[in-house]
Protein backbone atom coordinates (compact mmCIF):
# COMPACT_ATOMS: atom_id res chain seq x y z
CA UNK A 1 0.00 0.00 0.00
CA UNK A 2 2.73 2.40 1.00
CA UNK A 3 4.43 1.61 -2.27
CA UNK A 4 1.63 3.33 -4.15
CA UNK A 5 1.98 6.55 -2.23
CA UNK A 6 5.73 6.48 -2.68
CA UNK A 7 5.22 6.01 -6.40
CA UNK A 8 2.83 8.96 -6.36
CA UNK A 9 5.40 11.10 -4.59
CA UNK A 10 8.09 10.12 -7.04
CA UNK A 11 5.78 10.96 -9.93
CA UNK A 12 5.09 14.37 -8.52
CA UNK A 13 8.73 15.12 -7.82
CA UNK A 14 9.75 14.03 -11.30
CA UNK A 15 7.26 16.32 -12.97
CA UNK A 16 8.21 19.19 -10.70
CA UNK A 17 11.85 18.73 -11.61
CA UNK A 18 11.19 18.50 -15.33
CA UNK A 19 8.84 21.45 -15.11
CA UNK A 20 11.39 23.67 -13.46
CA UNK A 21 14.06 22.72 -15.96
CA UNK A 22 11.84 23.12 -19.01
CA UNK A 23 10.27 26.37 -17.91
CA UNK A 24 13.65 27.69 -17.00
CA UNK A 25 14.77 27.05 -20.54
CA UNK A 26 11.70 28.47 -22.20
CA UNK A 27 12.08 31.46 -19.96
CA UNK A 28 9.68 34.24 -20.58
CA UNK A 29 9.93 36.91 -17.96
CA UNK A 30 7.11 35.54 -15.95
CA UNK A 31 7.94 31.90 -16.41
CA UNK A 32 8.16 31.55 -12.67
CA UNK A 33 4.43 32.11 -12.51
CA UNK A 34 3.83 28.75 -14.10
CA UNK A 35 4.36 27.04 -10.76
CA UNK A 36 0.66 26.35 -10.41
CA UNK A 37 0.54 24.57 -13.76
CA UNK A 38 3.58 22.48 -12.88
CA UNK A 39 2.00 21.59 -9.55
CA UNK A 40 -1.22 20.55 -11.26
CA UNK A 41 0.61 18.35 -13.75
CA UNK A 42 2.58 16.94 -10.87
CA UNK A 43 -0.66 16.01 -9.13
CA UNK A 44 -1.88 14.29 -12.26
CA UNK A 45 1.39 12.42 -12.59
CA UNK A 46 1.16 11.38 -8.95
CA UNK A 47 -2.32 10.05 -9.55
CA UNK A 48 -1.21 8.11 -12.62
CA UNK A 49 1.77 6.71 -10.74
CA UNK A 50 -0.50 5.64 -7.89
CA UNK A 51 -2.93 3.97 -10.28
CA UNK A 52 -0.19 2.28 -12.27
CA UNK A 53 1.39 0.88 -9.12
CA UNK A 54 -1.93 -0.40 -7.93
CA UNK A 55 -2.50 -2.00 -11.30
CA UNK A 56 0.81 -3.79 -11.16
CA UNK A 57 0.15 -4.91 -7.63
CA UNK A 58 -3.40 -6.06 -7.93
CA UNK A 59 -4.28 -6.11 -11.60
CA UNK A 60 -7.05 -3.60 -11.03
CA UNK A 61 -7.89 -0.20 -9.68
CA UNK A 62 -9.84 -1.27 -6.62
CA UNK A 63 -9.18 1.55 -4.23
CA UNK A 64 -10.02 4.13 -6.87
CA UNK A 65 -12.98 2.37 -8.42
CA UNK A 66 -14.59 1.81 -5.05
CA UNK A 67 -15.11 5.54 -4.71
CA UNK A 68 -17.33 5.51 -7.74
CA UNK A 69 -20.59 4.06 -6.70
CA UNK A 70 -23.26 3.68 -9.34
CA UNK A 71 -25.12 6.82 -8.40
CA UNK A 72 -22.01 8.88 -9.10
CA UNK A 73 -21.48 7.11 -12.41
CA UNK A 74 -25.00 8.03 -13.46
CA UNK A 75 -24.58 11.61 -12.27
CA UNK A 76 -21.34 12.34 -14.11
CA UNK A 77 -22.72 12.36 -17.67
CA UNK A 78 -25.48 14.69 -16.52
CA UNK A 79 -22.88 16.93 -14.93
CA UNK A 80 -20.87 16.90 -18.13
CA UNK A 81 -23.95 17.87 -20.09
CA UNK A 82 -24.60 20.71 -17.64
CA UNK A 83 -21.03 21.91 -18.14
CA UNK A 84 -21.34 21.88 -21.88
CA UNK A 85 -24.79 23.30 -22.29
CA UNK A 86 -24.37 25.97 -19.69
CA UNK A 87 -20.80 26.63 -20.75
CA UNK A 88 -21.11 26.60 -24.50
CA UNK A 89 -24.61 27.87 -24.92
CA UNK A 90 -25.19 30.38 -22.18
CA UNK A 91 -21.85 32.06 -21.69
CA UNK A 92 -21.08 32.27 -25.37
CA UNK A 93 -24.49 33.55 -26.30
CA UNK A 94 -24.41 36.22 -23.65
CA UNK A 95 -20.81 37.13 -24.45
CA UNK A 96 -20.03 37.81 -20.83
CA UNK A 97 -16.42 37.52 -19.70
CA UNK A 98 -16.91 34.44 -17.59
CA UNK A 99 -17.03 30.79 -18.60
CA UNK A 100 -19.66 29.04 -16.47
CA UNK A 101 -18.40 25.69 -17.67
CA UNK A 102 -17.69 24.08 -14.31
CA UNK A 103 -21.10 23.90 -12.73
CA UNK A 104 -21.37 20.16 -13.27
CA UNK A 105 -17.80 19.48 -12.20
CA UNK A 106 -18.22 21.30 -8.91
CA UNK A 107 -21.58 19.64 -8.36
CA UNK A 108 -20.05 16.18 -8.68
CA UNK A 109 -17.12 17.18 -6.52
CA UNK A 110 -19.52 18.27 -3.83
CA UNK A 111 -21.82 15.26 -4.02
CA UNK A 112 -19.35 12.48 -4.71
CA UNK A 113 -15.96 13.59 -3.48
CA UNK A 114 -12.67 15.10 -4.60
CA UNK A 115 -11.44 12.24 -6.78
CA UNK A 116 -14.80 11.90 -8.49
CA UNK A 117 -14.89 15.64 -9.05
CA UNK A 118 -11.38 15.65 -10.46
CA UNK A 119 -12.07 12.80 -12.85
CA UNK A 120 -15.36 14.40 -13.87
CA UNK A 121 -13.63 17.64 -14.78
CA UNK A 122 -10.87 15.86 -16.65
CA UNK A 123 -13.21 13.58 -18.56
CA UNK A 124 -15.64 16.40 -19.23
CA UNK A 125 -13.08 18.47 -21.07
CA UNK A 126 -11.82 15.54 -23.12
CA UNK A 127 -15.31 14.42 -23.99
CA UNK A 128 -16.25 17.99 -24.83
CA UNK A 129 -13.57 18.21 -27.47
CA UNK A 130 -13.37 14.70 -28.83
CA UNK A 131 -16.71 13.03 -28.44
CA UNK A 132 -19.38 15.70 -28.38
CA UNK A 133 -20.39 16.55 -31.91
CA UNK A 134 -20.81 20.08 -33.21
CA UNK A 135 -22.53 22.47 -32.50
CA UNK A 136 -21.60 21.87 -28.90
CA UNK A 137 -18.08 20.67 -29.52
CA UNK A 138 -15.47 22.57 -27.56
CA UNK A 139 -12.62 23.60 -29.83
CA UNK A 140 -10.08 24.38 -27.15
CA UNK A 141 -11.38 22.35 -24.25
CA UNK A 142 -8.97 19.43 -24.09
CA UNK A 143 -5.78 21.22 -22.98
CA UNK A 144 -7.65 22.63 -20.02
CA UNK A 145 -8.65 19.22 -18.75
CA UNK A 146 -6.13 19.50 -15.97
CA UNK A 147 -7.60 22.81 -14.82
CA UNK A 148 -11.03 21.26 -14.69
CA UNK A 149 -9.62 18.35 -12.71
CA UNK A 150 -8.17 20.64 -10.08
CA UNK A 151 -11.44 22.56 -9.88
CA UNK A 152 -13.34 19.35 -9.22
CA UNK A 153 -10.74 18.31 -6.68
CA UNK A 154 -10.99 21.55 -4.76
CA UNK A 155 -14.76 21.53 -4.81
CA UNK A 156 -14.72 18.01 -3.37
CA UNK A 157 -12.31 18.99 -0.64
CA UNK A 158 -14.33 22.05 0.35
CA UNK A 159 -17.48 19.97 0.47
CA UNK A 160 -15.77 17.29 2.50
CA UNK A 161 -14.73 19.94 4.99
CA UNK A 162 -18.38 20.86 5.36
CA UNK A 163 -18.10 24.24 3.71
CA UNK A 164 -21.26 23.70 1.66
CA UNK A 165 -23.48 22.67 4.52
CA UNK A 166 -26.32 25.17 5.01
CA UNK A 167 -26.17 27.08 8.27
CA UNK A 168 -29.48 28.89 8.48
CA UNK A 169 -30.21 31.10 11.43
CA UNK A 170 -26.59 31.68 12.21
CA UNK A 171 -26.10 33.97 15.14
CA UNK A 172 -25.23 37.59 14.53
CA UNK A 173 -21.85 37.08 16.10
CA UNK A 174 -21.02 34.14 13.86
CA UNK A 175 -22.12 36.11 10.81
CA UNK A 176 -19.96 39.04 11.80
CA UNK A 177 -16.84 37.00 12.43
CA UNK A 178 -17.40 34.80 9.41
CA UNK A 179 -18.09 37.76 7.19
CA UNK A 180 -14.99 39.57 8.31
CA UNK A 181 -12.79 36.53 7.93
CA UNK A 182 -14.15 35.82 4.46
CA UNK A 183 -13.73 39.42 3.36
CA UNK A 184 -10.27 39.45 4.83
CA UNK A 185 -9.25 36.38 2.88
CA UNK A 186 -10.66 37.72 -0.36
CA UNK A 187 -8.94 41.07 0.13
CA UNK A 188 -5.65 39.33 0.86
CA UNK A 189 -5.96 37.27 -2.32
CA UNK A 190 -6.84 40.36 -4.31
CA UNK A 191 -3.85 42.21 -2.94
CA UNK A 192 -1.56 39.31 -3.78
CA UNK A 193 -2.89 39.17 -7.31
CA UNK A 194 -2.61 42.92 -7.73
CA UNK A 195 0.89 43.19 -6.43
CA UNK A 196 2.14 40.17 -8.31
CA UNK A 197 0.56 40.72 -11.68
CA UNK A 198 -0.76 44.21 -12.09
CA UNK A 199 1.49 46.85 -10.53
CA UNK A 200 4.56 46.27 -12.66
CA UNK A 201 2.59 46.44 -15.85
CA UNK A 202 0.72 49.67 -15.52
CA UNK A 203 -1.19 51.77 -13.12
CA UNK A 204 -4.90 51.99 -13.36
CA UNK A 205 -5.43 55.35 -11.89
CA UNK A 206 -2.28 57.06 -13.00
CA UNK A 207 -3.35 60.53 -14.11
CA UNK A 208 -0.36 60.68 -16.46
CA UNK A 209 -1.68 57.72 -18.34
CA UNK A 210 -3.69 59.48 -21.00
CA UNK A 211 -5.52 56.41 -22.19
CA UNK A 212 -9.15 56.78 -21.12
CA UNK A 213 -9.74 53.09 -21.66
CA UNK A 214 -7.74 52.21 -18.62
CA UNK A 215 -9.16 54.80 -16.40
CA UNK A 216 -12.57 53.38 -17.23
CA UNK A 217 -11.38 49.81 -16.82
CA UNK A 218 -9.82 50.66 -13.52
CA UNK A 219 -12.94 52.28 -12.21
CA UNK A 220 -15.01 49.36 -13.49
CA UNK A 221 -12.90 46.88 -11.62
CA UNK A 222 -12.93 48.97 -8.49
CA UNK A 223 -16.68 49.30 -8.84
CA UNK A 224 -16.99 45.55 -9.27
CA UNK A 225 -15.06 45.02 -6.10
CA UNK A 226 -17.18 47.43 -4.12
CA UNK A 227 -20.35 45.89 -5.53
CA UNK A 228 -19.06 42.51 -4.51
CA UNK A 229 -18.48 43.62 -0.93
CA UNK A 230 -21.87 45.26 -0.70
CA UNK A 231 -23.58 42.24 -2.23
CA UNK A 232 -21.73 39.88 0.05
CA UNK A 233 -22.71 41.74 3.19
CA UNK A 234 -26.29 42.09 2.01
CA UNK A 235 -26.54 38.38 1.29
CA UNK A 236 -25.14 37.51 4.69
CA UNK A 237 -27.59 39.77 6.43
CA UNK A 238 -30.61 38.77 4.40
CA UNK A 239 -30.17 35.03 4.45
CA UNK A 240 -28.50 34.79 7.84
CA UNK A 241 -26.63 31.83 6.45
CA UNK A 242 -22.99 31.68 7.41
CA UNK A 243 -22.34 29.29 4.55
CA UNK A 244 -22.50 32.31 2.23
CA UNK A 245 -19.13 33.31 3.63
CA UNK A 246 -17.71 29.82 3.12
CA UNK A 247 -19.02 29.60 -0.41
CA UNK A 248 -17.54 32.99 -1.25
CA UNK A 249 -14.08 32.03 -0.06
CA UNK A 250 -14.31 28.65 -1.79
CA UNK A 251 -15.29 30.31 -5.06
CA UNK A 252 -12.62 32.99 -5.01
CA UNK A 253 -9.90 30.55 -3.93
CA UNK A 254 -10.82 28.01 -6.59
CA UNK A 255 -10.97 30.78 -9.15
CA UNK A 256 -7.50 32.02 -8.32
CA UNK A 257 -5.99 28.55 -8.48
CA UNK A 258 -7.79 27.90 -11.75
CA UNK A 259 -6.48 31.16 -13.17
CA UNK A 260 -2.92 30.39 -12.14
CA UNK A 261 -3.03 26.98 -13.76
CA UNK A 262 -4.89 27.88 -16.92
CA UNK A 263 -3.02 31.07 -17.79
CA UNK A 264 0.24 29.40 -18.84
CA UNK A 265 -1.70 26.85 -20.89
CA UNK A 266 -3.79 29.52 -22.56
CA UNK A 267 -0.86 31.83 -23.16
CA UNK A 268 1.48 29.25 -24.60
CA UNK A 269 -1.04 27.41 -26.72
CA UNK A 270 -3.46 30.04 -27.90
CA UNK A 271 -1.81 33.34 -26.96
CA UNK A 272 -4.58 33.83 -24.43
CA UNK A 273 -7.49 33.73 -26.84
CA UNK A 274 -10.33 31.29 -26.38
CA UNK A 275 -13.09 32.75 -28.51
CA UNK A 276 -15.21 33.68 -25.53
CA UNK A 277 -16.09 37.04 -24.07
CA UNK A 278 -12.83 37.13 -22.13
CA UNK A 279 -10.80 37.95 -25.21
CA UNK A 280 -11.77 41.58 -24.96
CA UNK A 281 -10.08 41.78 -21.58
CA UNK A 282 -6.93 40.17 -22.95
CA UNK A 283 -6.86 42.71 -25.73
CA UNK A 284 -7.27 45.56 -23.27
CA UNK A 285 -4.40 44.39 -21.12
CA UNK A 286 -2.15 43.89 -24.09
CA UNK A 287 -2.93 47.38 -25.30
CA UNK A 288 -1.76 48.61 -21.95
CA UNK A 289 1.59 47.06 -22.63
CA UNK A 290 1.54 43.66 -20.96
CA UNK A 291 3.17 40.85 -22.84
CA UNK A 292 1.16 37.80 -23.76
CA UNK A 293 1.88 35.79 -20.64
CA UNK A 294 1.13 38.62 -18.25
CA UNK A 295 -1.99 39.76 -20.10
CA UNK A 296 -3.39 36.26 -19.88
CA UNK A 297 -2.73 36.13 -16.16
CA UNK A 298 -4.32 39.51 -15.72
CA UNK A 299 -7.43 38.47 -17.56
CA UNK A 300 -7.63 35.15 -15.82
CA UNK A 301 -7.31 36.63 -12.36
CA UNK A 302 -10.30 38.83 -13.11
CA UNK A 303 -12.54 36.33 -14.89
CA UNK A 304 -11.86 33.14 -13.02
CA UNK A 305 -12.59 34.18 -9.45
CA UNK A 306 -15.81 35.84 -10.57
CA UNK A 307 -16.71 32.81 -12.65
CA UNK A 308 -16.03 30.31 -9.88
CA UNK A 309 -17.75 32.50 -7.33
CA UNK A 310 -20.91 32.55 -9.41
CA UNK A 311 -20.60 28.83 -10.09
CA UNK A 312 -20.16 27.89 -6.45
CA UNK A 313 -23.23 29.92 -5.57
CA UNK A 314 -25.23 28.27 -8.31
CA UNK A 315 -24.16 24.85 -7.04
CA UNK A 316 -24.98 25.82 -3.47
CA UNK A 317 -28.42 26.99 -4.49
CA UNK A 318 -29.00 23.82 -6.46
CA UNK A 319 -27.94 21.70 -3.49
CA UNK A 320 -30.30 23.50 -1.16
CA UNK A 321 -33.12 22.89 -3.61
CA UNK A 322 -32.64 19.14 -3.76
CA UNK A 323 -34.57 17.00 -1.33
CA UNK A 324 -32.50 15.95 1.63
CA UNK A 325 -33.01 12.25 1.16
CA UNK A 326 -31.87 12.47 -2.47
CA UNK A 327 -28.65 14.19 -1.48
CA UNK A 328 -28.01 11.89 1.45
CA UNK A 329 -27.68 8.90 -0.83
CA UNK A 330 -24.67 10.33 -2.62
CA UNK A 331 -21.23 9.39 -1.27
CA UNK A 332 -20.56 12.80 0.25
CA UNK A 333 -24.18 13.70 0.70
CA UNK A 334 -24.10 13.69 4.45
CA UNK A 335 -21.68 16.60 4.49
CA UNK A 336 -23.98 18.75 2.39
CA UNK A 337 -27.06 18.66 4.56
CA UNK A 338 -27.71 20.13 7.95
CA UNK A 339 -27.08 17.75 10.76
CA UNK A 340 -30.72 16.93 11.19
CA UNK A 341 -33.01 14.20 12.35
CA UNK A 342 -30.69 11.37 13.12
CA UNK A 343 -32.22 8.39 11.39
CA UNK A 344 -33.14 5.57 13.70
CA UNK A 345 -30.18 3.31 13.96
CA UNK A 346 -30.03 -0.37 13.25
CA UNK A 347 -31.26 -2.38 16.14
CA UNK A 348 -32.59 -5.78 16.77
CA UNK A 349 -33.91 -7.33 13.63
CA UNK A 350 -33.37 -4.31 11.37
CA UNK A 351 -30.35 -4.66 9.13
CA UNK A 352 -28.88 -2.82 6.20
CA UNK A 353 -27.79 -4.20 2.85
CA UNK A 354 -25.33 -7.03 3.06
CA UNK A 355 -25.32 -8.37 -0.49
Amino acid at each position, binding site marked *: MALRWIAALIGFALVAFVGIVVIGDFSAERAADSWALVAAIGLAAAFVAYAATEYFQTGGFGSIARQFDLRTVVLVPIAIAINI*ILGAAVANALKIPIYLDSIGTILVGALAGPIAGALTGF*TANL*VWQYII*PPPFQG*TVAAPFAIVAAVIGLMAGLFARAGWLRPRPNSSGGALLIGGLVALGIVVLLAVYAYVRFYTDAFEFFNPDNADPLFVILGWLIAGLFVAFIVGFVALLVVRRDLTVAYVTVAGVLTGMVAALISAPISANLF*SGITGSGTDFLVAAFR*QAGSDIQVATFQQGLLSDPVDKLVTFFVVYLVLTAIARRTIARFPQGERLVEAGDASAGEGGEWRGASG
Partner: protein
Amino acid sequence: MAGGERLNVGAGQDRGRGVPGFLGRRGPGRYHRLNPLTKATLATVTAIGAVVVGGLLGPALLVAAAVLLPALAAGVLRRLLLLAGLLALPIAISAFVVNLFFFPGGADVLFRVGPIVATAEGLGFALEILARILAISGAVTLFYLTTHPADLVVDLERRGVSPRLAFVANASVQAVPAMVERAAQITAAQRARGLDTEGSIWRRVRGLVPIVAPVILGSIAEVEERTMALEARGFTRPGRRTLLWAPRDSVPEATVRWLMLAGLAGLVALRATGAWPG
Protein backbone atom coordinates in the same frame (compact mmCIF):
# COMPACT_ATOMS: atom_id res chain seq x y z
CA MET B 1 -13.00 -10.26 -24.82
CA ALA B 2 -9.22 -10.51 -24.93
CA GLY B 3 -7.53 -7.51 -26.41
CA GLY B 4 -6.77 -7.74 -30.06
CA GLU B 5 -9.39 -10.33 -30.81
CA ARG B 6 -11.35 -9.53 -33.89
CA LEU B 7 -15.07 -9.83 -33.81
CA ASN B 8 -16.95 -10.44 -36.99
CA VAL B 9 -19.25 -7.74 -38.07
CA GLY B 10 -20.97 -9.16 -41.05
CA ALA B 11 -22.94 -7.41 -43.67
CA GLY B 12 -25.59 -10.05 -44.02
CA GLN B 13 -23.51 -12.36 -41.91
CA ASP B 14 -26.46 -13.12 -39.69
CA ARG B 15 -25.76 -16.77 -39.12
CA GLY B 16 -29.32 -17.64 -38.47
CA ARG B 17 -30.07 -15.14 -35.74
CA GLY B 18 -26.61 -13.85 -35.04
CA VAL B 19 -25.50 -10.30 -34.66
CA PRO B 20 -27.89 -8.13 -36.62
CA GLY B 21 -26.34 -6.66 -39.70
CA PHE B 22 -26.91 -3.08 -38.77
CA LEU B 23 -24.59 -3.31 -35.77
CA GLY B 24 -21.13 -2.08 -36.34
CA ARG B 25 -21.01 1.12 -38.21
CA ARG B 26 -19.10 0.65 -41.40
CA GLY B 27 -18.30 3.82 -43.19
CA PRO B 28 -18.53 4.39 -46.90
CA GLY B 29 -14.79 4.56 -47.29
CA ARG B 30 -11.61 2.75 -46.32
CA TYR B 31 -10.59 5.61 -44.10
CA HIS B 32 -13.86 5.39 -42.22
CA ARG B 33 -13.24 1.75 -41.52
CA LEU B 34 -9.92 2.36 -39.89
CA ASN B 35 -9.81 1.58 -36.23
CA PRO B 36 -11.14 4.53 -34.22
CA LEU B 37 -8.09 4.58 -31.99
CA THR B 38 -5.94 5.11 -35.05
CA LYS B 39 -8.03 8.04 -36.15
CA ALA B 40 -8.04 9.46 -32.64
CA THR B 41 -4.28 9.12 -32.40
CA LEU B 42 -3.92 10.93 -35.68
CA ALA B 43 -6.13 13.76 -34.47
CA THR B 44 -4.24 14.09 -31.20
CA VAL B 45 -0.80 13.89 -32.76
CA THR B 46 -1.75 16.48 -35.35
CA ALA B 47 -3.19 18.84 -32.77
CA ILE B 48 -0.26 18.57 -30.39
CA GLY B 49 2.19 18.54 -33.26
CA ALA B 50 0.83 21.77 -34.66
CA VAL B 51 1.41 23.43 -31.31
CA VAL B 52 4.86 22.00 -30.79
CA VAL B 53 6.14 22.74 -34.25
CA GLY B 54 5.21 26.38 -34.16
CA GLY B 55 5.71 28.81 -36.98
CA LEU B 56 3.54 28.92 -40.06
CA LEU B 57 5.00 26.32 -42.37
CA GLY B 58 4.89 23.48 -39.88
CA PRO B 59 1.20 23.59 -39.04
CA ALA B 60 0.36 24.23 -42.69
CA LEU B 61 2.23 21.10 -43.74
CA LEU B 62 0.60 19.14 -40.97
CA VAL B 63 -2.82 20.30 -41.98
CA ALA B 64 -2.17 19.35 -45.57
CA ALA B 65 -0.78 15.93 -44.76
CA ALA B 66 -2.78 14.85 -41.74
CA VAL B 67 -6.07 16.63 -42.24
CA LEU B 68 -6.77 17.58 -45.84
CA LEU B 69 -5.30 14.51 -47.47
CA PRO B 70 -7.16 11.95 -45.35
CA ALA B 71 -10.31 14.06 -45.69
CA LEU B 72 -9.98 13.91 -49.43
CA ALA B 73 -9.43 10.16 -49.29
CA ALA B 74 -12.46 9.75 -47.08
CA GLY B 75 -14.60 11.96 -49.25
CA VAL B 76 -15.43 14.43 -46.49
CA LEU B 77 -13.23 17.30 -47.59
CA ARG B 78 -16.00 19.75 -48.32
CA ARG B 79 -17.87 19.04 -45.11
CA LEU B 80 -14.65 19.24 -43.19
CA LEU B 81 -13.77 22.67 -44.54
CA LEU B 82 -17.26 23.91 -43.83
CA LEU B 83 -17.54 22.46 -40.36
CA ALA B 84 -14.02 23.15 -39.16
CA GLY B 85 -14.22 26.63 -40.56
CA LEU B 86 -17.48 27.35 -38.78
CA LEU B 87 -16.26 25.85 -35.53
CA ALA B 88 -13.01 27.75 -35.56
CA LEU B 89 -14.58 30.99 -36.72
CA PRO B 90 -15.18 32.70 -33.35
CA ILE B 91 -11.74 31.84 -32.05
CA ALA B 92 -10.10 32.54 -35.37
CA ILE B 93 -11.57 36.01 -35.57
CA SER B 94 -10.72 36.79 -31.98
CA ALA B 95 -7.21 35.44 -32.27
CA PHE B 96 -6.54 37.23 -35.51
CA VAL B 97 -7.84 40.61 -34.42
CA VAL B 98 -6.35 40.57 -30.95
CA ASN B 99 -2.96 39.44 -32.10
CA LEU B 100 -2.84 41.72 -35.12
CA PHE B 101 -3.65 44.84 -33.18
CA PHE B 102 -2.47 44.12 -29.72
CA PHE B 103 0.87 42.46 -30.20
CA PRO B 104 3.17 43.69 -27.47
CA GLY B 105 6.45 45.01 -28.73
CA GLY B 106 5.38 45.32 -32.34
CA ALA B 107 7.34 48.06 -34.05
CA ASP B 108 6.69 47.69 -37.75
CA VAL B 109 3.38 49.52 -38.08
CA LEU B 110 1.07 48.49 -40.91
CA PHE B 111 -1.91 50.73 -40.30
CA ARG B 112 -3.85 52.42 -37.56
CA VAL B 113 -7.41 52.39 -36.43
CA GLY B 114 -7.78 55.24 -33.98
CA PRO B 115 -5.47 54.60 -31.05
CA ILE B 116 -4.98 50.95 -32.04
CA VAL B 117 -2.05 49.92 -34.25
CA ALA B 118 -1.63 46.88 -36.45
CA THR B 119 1.94 45.70 -36.66
CA ALA B 120 3.77 43.36 -38.99
CA GLU B 121 5.02 41.29 -36.09
CA GLY B 122 1.43 41.11 -34.93
CA LEU B 123 0.33 39.93 -38.34
CA GLY B 124 2.96 37.24 -38.38
CA PHE B 125 2.03 36.03 -34.93
CA ALA B 126 -1.68 36.20 -35.71
CA LEU B 127 -1.18 33.99 -38.74
CA GLU B 128 0.82 31.52 -36.68
CA ILE B 129 -1.88 31.24 -34.05
CA LEU B 130 -4.50 31.00 -36.77
CA ALA B 131 -2.66 28.14 -38.41
CA ARG B 132 -2.42 26.36 -35.10
CA ILE B 133 -6.11 26.77 -34.35
CA LEU B 134 -7.11 25.61 -37.80
CA ALA B 135 -4.89 22.58 -37.46
CA ILE B 136 -6.47 21.59 -34.16
CA SER B 137 -9.97 22.31 -35.35
CA GLY B 138 -9.39 20.45 -38.59
CA ALA B 139 -7.88 17.43 -36.91
CA VAL B 140 -10.70 17.03 -34.44
CA THR B 141 -13.36 17.66 -37.08
CA LEU B 142 -11.83 15.02 -39.31
CA PHE B 143 -12.09 12.59 -36.43
CA TYR B 144 -15.69 13.54 -35.80
CA LEU B 145 -16.67 13.20 -39.45
CA THR B 146 -15.16 9.79 -39.90
CA THR B 147 -15.81 8.14 -36.58
CA HIS B 148 -18.86 7.36 -34.58
CA PRO B 149 -18.11 8.23 -30.95
CA ALA B 150 -19.63 5.01 -29.67
CA ASP B 151 -17.15 3.09 -31.83
CA LEU B 152 -14.23 4.66 -30.05
CA VAL B 153 -15.71 3.84 -26.68
CA VAL B 154 -16.37 0.22 -27.65
CA ASP B 155 -12.82 -0.11 -28.89
CA LEU B 156 -11.44 1.30 -25.68
CA GLU B 157 -13.62 -1.01 -23.64
CA ARG B 158 -12.36 -3.98 -25.60
CA ARG B 159 -8.84 -2.94 -24.74
CA GLY B 160 -9.61 -2.92 -21.06
CA VAL B 161 -11.16 0.38 -20.10
CA SER B 162 -13.61 -0.11 -17.25
CA PRO B 163 -17.27 -0.51 -18.25
CA ARG B 164 -18.18 2.32 -15.88
CA LEU B 165 -15.86 4.74 -17.63
CA ALA B 166 -17.19 3.59 -20.99
CA PHE B 167 -20.68 4.17 -19.67
CA VAL B 168 -19.78 7.72 -18.65
CA ALA B 169 -18.40 8.49 -22.10
CA ASN B 170 -21.37 7.04 -23.97
CA ALA B 171 -23.96 8.48 -21.64
CA SER B 172 -22.40 11.93 -21.92
CA VAL B 173 -22.90 11.93 -25.64
CA GLN B 174 -26.55 11.10 -25.21
CA ALA B 175 -27.03 13.38 -22.25
CA VAL B 176 -26.28 16.55 -24.18
CA PRO B 177 -29.07 16.39 -26.77
CA ALA B 178 -31.40 14.97 -24.13
CA MET B 179 -30.78 17.99 -21.94
CA VAL B 180 -31.22 20.38 -24.85
CA GLU B 181 -34.56 18.78 -25.60
CA ARG B 182 -35.64 19.02 -22.00
CA ALA B 183 -34.59 22.66 -21.90
CA ALA B 184 -36.61 23.32 -25.03
CA GLN B 185 -39.68 21.69 -23.51
CA ILE B 186 -39.35 23.65 -20.30
CA THR B 187 -38.78 26.86 -22.24
CA ALA B 188 -41.98 26.27 -24.19
CA ALA B 189 -43.88 25.53 -21.01
CA GLN B 190 -42.55 28.59 -19.24
CA ARG B 191 -43.25 30.81 -22.22
CA ALA B 192 -46.81 29.56 -22.20
CA ARG B 193 -46.93 30.75 -18.61
CA GLY B 194 -45.79 34.17 -19.65
CA LEU B 195 -42.03 33.99 -19.20
CA ASP B 196 -40.24 36.80 -20.97
CA THR B 197 -37.13 35.63 -22.78
CA GLU B 198 -36.37 38.61 -24.98
CA GLY B 199 -35.08 42.01 -24.18
CA SER B 200 -32.16 43.43 -22.32
CA ILE B 201 -29.32 41.30 -21.10
CA TRP B 202 -30.48 41.53 -17.54
CA ARG B 203 -33.93 40.35 -18.46
CA ARG B 204 -32.58 37.50 -20.52
CA VAL B 205 -30.39 36.35 -17.66
CA ARG B 206 -33.34 36.48 -15.30
CA GLY B 207 -35.40 34.64 -17.88
CA LEU B 208 -32.85 31.86 -17.87
CA VAL B 209 -33.30 30.96 -14.24
CA PRO B 210 -36.80 29.43 -14.53
CA ILE B 211 -35.43 27.30 -17.35
CA VAL B 212 -32.04 26.28 -16.07
CA ALA B 213 -33.21 25.44 -12.57
CA PRO B 214 -35.84 22.85 -13.55
CA VAL B 215 -33.45 21.33 -16.09
CA ILE B 216 -30.74 20.80 -13.51
CA LEU B 217 -33.05 19.74 -10.71
CA GLY B 218 -35.07 17.47 -12.97
CA SER B 219 -31.96 15.73 -14.24
CA ILE B 220 -30.67 15.16 -10.73
CA ALA B 221 -34.00 13.83 -9.56
CA GLU B 222 -33.83 11.19 -12.28
CA VAL B 223 -30.52 9.86 -11.07
CA GLU B 224 -32.19 7.76 -8.39
CA GLU B 225 -34.46 5.80 -10.69
CA ARG B 226 -31.84 5.43 -13.39
CA THR B 227 -29.42 4.04 -10.87
CA MET B 228 -31.99 1.46 -9.80
CA ALA B 229 -32.70 0.55 -13.41
CA LEU B 230 -29.01 -0.04 -14.08
CA GLU B 231 -28.69 -2.19 -10.98
CA ALA B 232 -31.67 -4.21 -12.10
CA ARG B 233 -29.84 -4.93 -15.36
CA GLY B 234 -26.82 -6.35 -13.61
CA PHE B 235 -24.56 -3.38 -14.27
CA THR B 236 -22.83 -3.65 -10.92
CA ARG B 237 -21.35 -7.02 -11.66
CA PRO B 238 -17.59 -6.72 -11.25
CA GLY B 239 -15.45 -7.53 -14.22
CA ARG B 240 -15.64 -7.01 -17.93
CA ARG B 241 -18.80 -7.34 -19.89
CA THR B 242 -19.40 -9.14 -23.15
CA LEU B 243 -19.21 -7.01 -26.24
CA LEU B 244 -21.36 -7.88 -29.22
CA TRP B 245 -18.93 -6.42 -31.68
CA ALA B 246 -15.87 -4.26 -31.87
CA PRO B 247 -14.05 -2.38 -34.59
CA ARG B 248 -11.32 -4.26 -36.37
CA ASP B 249 -7.73 -3.60 -35.62
CA SER B 250 -4.65 -4.78 -37.43
CA VAL B 251 -0.92 -4.96 -36.89
CA PRO B 252 -0.10 -2.39 -39.58
CA GLU B 253 -2.49 0.06 -37.97
CA ALA B 254 -1.04 -0.50 -34.54
CA THR B 255 2.41 0.06 -35.97
CA VAL B 256 1.34 3.30 -37.56
CA ARG B 257 -0.09 4.46 -34.26
CA TRP B 258 3.14 3.81 -32.42
CA LEU B 259 5.11 5.50 -35.18
CA MET B 260 2.92 8.59 -34.92
CA LEU B 261 3.38 8.75 -31.19
CA ALA B 262 7.11 8.22 -31.50
CA GLY B 263 7.25 10.96 -34.08
CA LEU B 264 5.46 13.32 -31.76
CA ALA B 265 7.73 12.43 -28.87
CA GLY B 266 10.73 13.07 -31.06
CA LEU B 267 9.33 16.42 -32.10
CA VAL B 268 8.75 17.43 -28.51
CA ALA B 269 12.26 16.36 -27.58
CA LEU B 270 13.76 18.35 -30.44
CA ARG B 271 11.84 21.44 -29.44
CA ALA B 272 12.62 21.09 -25.76
CA THR B 273 16.31 20.82 -26.33
CA GLY B 274 16.22 23.73 -28.72
CA ALA B 275 17.44 21.74 -31.70
CA TRP B 276 14.39 22.74 -33.77
CA PRO B 277 14.21 26.41 -34.81
CA GLY B 278 11.17 28.07 -33.24
